[in-house]
């Protein structure tokens, strides 16, 4: 409890500190982390708690982003319309993809979710009316709150508030009856069925909830850069989200947010700074080494390692 208060105070103070240091860039960078924290947390719900290794999570993330982008280009800028639409479309996509994919198991599930995500990727690549390969730029960030979201500090606080809300919802969900069943299914699907749980329905609903949250994160990432491109749906994006979850801690509550923070910070550290000099193009190499170390020495992820220490 104490730790969460400290995190909240630090998160709230960050824009002011950065302004005082004249480093506003890092406020925007922190916003990006918060958005990916939400996306990674949504993946952790299915991957870590539900035991469903979805390798196509970018589909829902990207779909949410594209809905906001397309609506903005068409003149619908109110977040009261475009964000719920992004969530709904992502949830619907998760319902359809999940309904089919969840009939398979293991490697087949990984492959079929990957295949669906890549199909959606090519749909948006070929969508010439909305930029195709090049993606599309939004005229401005969404409107509807009475304050301009183009102010990066306002934008930061909105994203922070939404992330806090989503994490609270997830926290409740995981302790509810539904959350227990989801974890039970991950532990032992056969036994859960033998206890009388209609396992498929629980998995599908979990998948849809996760997709909806990823859709909201997508709506936010579209606003973050005022740009959406097919790269958001690419399988590399799904892999990035998965790496975040593994780094942070699979099935650990803070796994998604911690992993998103660490991975993006490492990327920033190695690619943007003079740390690697002329080799900064190859920033993935040290990041890969760190990932390897985490998997080998802290299989519970960074959040898991910390939780163990504090016990």
């Amino acid at each position, binding site marked *: 409890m104490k730790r969460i208060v400290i995190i909240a105070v630090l998160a709230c103070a960050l824009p002011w500190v950065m302004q005082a240091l004249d480093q506003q860039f890092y406020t925007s960078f922190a916003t990006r982390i918060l958005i990916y924290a939400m996306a990674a947390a949504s993946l952790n719900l299915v991957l870590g708690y539900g035991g469903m290794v979805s390798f196509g999570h970018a589909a829902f993330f990207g779909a949410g982003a594209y809905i906001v982008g397309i609506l903005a280009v068409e003149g619908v800028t109110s977040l009261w319309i475009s964000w719920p639409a992004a969530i709904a479309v992502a949830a619907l996509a998760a319902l359809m993809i999940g309904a089919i994919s969840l009939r398979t198991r293991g490697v087949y599930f990984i492959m079929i979710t990957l295949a669906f995500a890549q199909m959606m990727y090519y749909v948006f690549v070929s969508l010439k009316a909305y930029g195709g390969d090049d993606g599309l730029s939004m005229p401005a960030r969404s409107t509807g709150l009475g304050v301009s979201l183009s102010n990066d500090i306002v934008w930061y606080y909105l994203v922070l508030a939404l992330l806090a809300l989503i994490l609270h919802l997830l926290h409740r969900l995981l302790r509810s009856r539904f*959350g227990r069943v989801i*974890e039970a299914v991950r532990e032992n699907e*056969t*036994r859960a069925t*033998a206890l009388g749980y209609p*396992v498929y329905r629980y998995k599908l609903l979990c998948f849809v909830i996760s997709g909806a949250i990823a859709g909201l994160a997508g709506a936010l990432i579209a606003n973050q850069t005022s740009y959406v491109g097919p790269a958001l749906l690419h399988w590399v994006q799904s892999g990035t989200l998965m790496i975040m979850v593994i780094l942070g801690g699979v099935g650990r509550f803070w796994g998604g947010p911690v992993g998103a923070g660490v991975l993006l910070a490492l990327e920033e550290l190695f690619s943007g700074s003079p740390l690697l000099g002329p080799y900064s193009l190859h920033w993935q190499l040290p990041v890969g080494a760190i990932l390897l170390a985490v998997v080998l020495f802290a299989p519970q992820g960074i959040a898991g390692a910390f939780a163990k220490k504090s016990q």
Partner: protein
Amino acid sequence: MLSLRNLSKRFGGVVAVDGVSLDVGAGEVHALIGPNGAGKTTLIHQISGTLAADAGEILFLEKDITRLPAHRRVAVGLARSYQITSIFRRFSVLDNLALAVQARSGSSFSFWRPVAEETALFEEARLIASQVNLTQKLDAVASTLSHGEQRALEVGLALATRPKLVLLDEPMAGMGPEESKRMIGLIGRIRAEVSVLLVEHDMDAVFRLADRISVMVNGRLIATGFPEQIRMHEEVRKAYLGDELAA
């Protein structure tokens, strides 16, 4: 209570269950014995709904459940345990049992209220725990239990669904004599409330517990009868029991 009519299952060219007809009455402990590979576990899978029947029908409480999905069969009062222990290994004993109680008490499509506040679930779970002698181990993580305790939890999970008939697939598998004795005591106690179809290799347990015994060889039932009849049955002795029981 349970009535199988000409139930069959084949895997490719192998007939695992071949036209089995069997009745388990209310309050009965019915043992199913037979050599390895006779099709006993396949039969249990079919009754519990894990495997579909190729032919024949399954009646439970006079209703045809042949096509009912596995999870719905639990709802009408048919629970099972597994030959190979199937528990939630990373959950505590109490959470294991509470989860089983939760399955039959209200909807679990509930997303907001913490389970921990539902004291009724955990009270019921404690009751089951005392029934299977796990009261001392409530907070232990299931994977840390001894083999015998895990087997007891396995049976506890089946009982926690409040079944009318429980299918126990070799509950004494891998147990030492002490643990077996405890399991025999447990089955002896639950028979007052629930009918049992017991698959077991431990002949001592079978003859001590069973009201009736059916013998399965190569997918077929070759005999059904009271323990004394089975003991004396020529064909059974030849096929399965061996001579040591003839004495």
